[in-house]
């Protein structure tokens, strides 16, 4: 047993930290105020990250390589790309969650392609920035209720429906769209399709104005008789009712730790800044029991303990993925924990910093807004609890609704 981050990730973590501190932070407030303006600074950065990816997948700081297994360590234990991606995301989101989400070619759609695409598809979509489109006006957490349809016509699928909350949906080169082959067949009929911008029938409806992560565009996209080549369907085109949703949901096991990592990074930013602001008022030497110090010291220790818990639960889930251990429950645990902890810490830090924390002079109020989405997307905390509870209790989705 060893719970230290191995040395081999040091350069990755350091590089991501440099990006966070040197590139993201200086432009963080600007793009928060200028919602929907494309952060040009990120284009060059993305090229540099592409270089990292090509060199060593385990050195990647983006989402694109989640799901791939890492290099084998001695005696079979792996600390691979899932862990590396999470560590990178923690650092980048220490800088700015929204700017990380706006990094070209690091979208959640890329993670989906990486997780379920065939080798031919991976080759075909290489270098493309892929966003992910699941949510519809009538379905949020209930992905099984998707109404967007994909009708087979010859060598094509014809897509019809409305997608909302597509992160980087406009800026990306393509969108991974979830649609059903047959609404009467339930979840098993839901498949994902890579749809490239420029495909006739695909239209940008609007960009959302949001509470936080404003530097990251959130698109609503409409599909009207949008024809997609049949070979753009990810995974198997068969409707296998015995497998149900499993294929599509597989992606989440890899991306939930990533979102947890984002919450960890955002939380750390707030906690560190609060400590800096309070440097003359608190003595944080871990010297006496938590209840023996001042109220604010106790609160900081508690935040730090909760933050560490979120951090290590996230690393655990990523480690399990690297070692090909089924990690659905642990992925949901870290997502639930990091989501609420990140939100609690950022809100509490803004509060404890007083008007400084509430003012746009500091980034604390921004992090307190940004963190809220991390407790929502990729499955709300409540959805994670459902997944965990069903598994622990051995209940089906019809028993524990």
């Amino acid at each position, binding site marked *: 047993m060893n719970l230290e981050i191995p040395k081999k990730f040091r350069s990755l973590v350091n590089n991501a930290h440099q990006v966070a501190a040197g590139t993201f932070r200086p432009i963080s407030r600007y793009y928060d105020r200028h919602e929907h303006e494309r952060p040009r600074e990120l284009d060059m950065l993305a090229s540099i990250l592409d270089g990292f990816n090509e060199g060593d997948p385990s050195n990647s700081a983006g989402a694109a390589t989640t799901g791939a297994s890492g290099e084998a360590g001695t005696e079979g234990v792996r600390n691979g790309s899932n862990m590396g991606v999470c560590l990178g995301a923690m650092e980048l989101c220490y800088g700015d969650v929204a700017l990380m989400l706006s990094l070209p070619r690091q979208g959640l759609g890329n993670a989906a392609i990486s997780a379920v695409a065939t080798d031919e598809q991976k080759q075909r979509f290489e270098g493309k920035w892929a966003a992910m489109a699941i949510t519809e006006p009538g379905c949020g957490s209930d992905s099984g209720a998707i109404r967007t349809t994909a009708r087979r016509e010859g060598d094509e699928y014809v897509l019809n429906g409305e997608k909302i909350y597509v992160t980087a949906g406009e800026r990306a080169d393509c969108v991974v769209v979830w649609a059903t082959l047959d609404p009467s067949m339930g979840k098993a009929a839901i498949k994902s399709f890579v749809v490239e911008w420029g495909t006739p029938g695909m239209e940008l409806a609007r960009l959302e104005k949001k509470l936080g992560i404003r530097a990251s565009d959130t698109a609503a996209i409409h599909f009207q008789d949008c024809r997609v080549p049949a070979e753009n369907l990810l995974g198997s085109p068969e409707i296998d009712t015995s497998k149900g949703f499993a294929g599509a949901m597989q992606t989440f096991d890899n991306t939930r730790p990533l979102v947890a990592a984002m919450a960890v990074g955002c939380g750390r930013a707030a906690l560190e800044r609060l400590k800096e602001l309070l440097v003359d008022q608190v003595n944080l030497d*871990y010297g006496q*029991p*938590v209840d023996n110090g001042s109220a604010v010291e106790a609160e900081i*220790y*508690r935040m730090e303990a909760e933050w560490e*818990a979120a951090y290590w*639960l996230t690393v655990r889930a990523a480690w399990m993925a690297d070692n090909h251990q089924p990690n659905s429950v642990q992925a949901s645990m870290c997502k639930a924990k990091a989501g609420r902890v990140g939100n609690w810490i950022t809100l509490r830090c803004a509060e404890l910093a007083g008007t400084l924390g509430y003012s746009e002079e500091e980034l604390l109020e921004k992090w307190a807004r940004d963190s809220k989405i991390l407790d929502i997307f990729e499955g709300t905390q409540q959805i994670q609890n459902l997944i*965990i*509870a069903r598994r622990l209790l051995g209940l089906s989705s019809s028993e524990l609704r």
Partner: protein
Amino acid sequence: MARDAMGYALSALNHLAGSGVLDRLGVRRTAENISYYLSRSSFSAISTSARQFRNLNPLKRPQRLQAPGETRDLFDLNITDEQRMIRESVQEFAREVLRERGEPADAEQSIAPGTLEQASELGLTLFAVPEALGGAATERSPVTSMLVAEDLAHGDMGQAIAILAPVSVANALTQWGSAHQQGTYLVEFAGDHPPVATIAVSEPAPLFDPLRPACTASRRGDHYVLKGTKSLVPLAAQAELFLVAAMTEDGPGVFIVEGGSQGLGVEADFAMGGRAGGQGRVTLDGVTVPAANRLGAGDFDYRAFVDLGTLAWCSLAIGTSQAMLDYVIPYANERTAFGEPISHRQGVAFLISDMAIELDAMRMLTWRAVCRAEQGLPFRREAHLARTLVKDKAMGIGTNGVQVLGGHGYTHEYPVERWYRDLRATGIAFGGLHL
């Protein structure tokens, strides 16, 4: 035994209490206070010990063991094959023996002699003593101790405390003892009848800080004189050997005190939980110990000594919390209300999933701190954060576990009320144990 005498005294008191005489006389409150002290003093004894500790084969230097060498520079949550084997036997013992006897041991406030005998077959004490001193240990692994504590507490925390207190003293002597201390005391733990031993750190004061004990150790020539009161000391009445934390002129230290020492007294101190651990108060009224009995050989780290105790309590809390989770899952599936199992309601199911999330959070922080301790890395911060998280989350699991069972959970028909009481110890106990 003192317990029997106390039993008689208590039944006499109960007879009086139930008679209504006290209410008529208007002195019930006073009598209740007196009864508490009466019962304590009936238990109270000058601690005695037939055992003679002698340094028969003086060592040239203390025996220090290395951490297991398998640690590599990779994050790894796997345990070794040896640890897996140890866990299997400890888990079986906890399941078959400790769980079964949890309720009677709690009621009697002691572990049955037969249980202790069975526990000794696990060889925990022997594996805490270096081979050179007649033991079986070739390496020192706080991680293994942590896993053992967790598994024992999954059976029953109170009995786990009684089993682990002497092992803890052996661990501390192995890690910190001087050549003289190991030759005199540690060797005894490798014998057929290892001494009953315990660690006394906590004191009966609110907001107790183990780094600032009120108990003092004053230097008088080549002796120290100890004065003070220690509370929640496991096996207090039976212990033949104590490690006592006390403040000296140069900061807090730990002193090896033999049972039967002049001025050493023991009183019963009935507590909310962990009762099978036989915790009591220890009074030190000018107890004189040789200066050579101050624990350490130049490398003693009082803070680490305390933290390895705190992390042992965290490990126990993890085991008991796991027991709670494992218990409420089948209960919630079998108990029906409004025509279906209560587990079908999110209000119940989410309590359970949150228990599971926080239990794993407790695990990760405790494991991290103990791994660092084992590897010789600084672990003060990690131990502090582990305790800060574990004491809140473990109690949350305790209270929510009882909540899932509702009224049933509040009665002794089910073990969850005992686990609730046991888990409260996590925010309170210092010392007593040492990984």
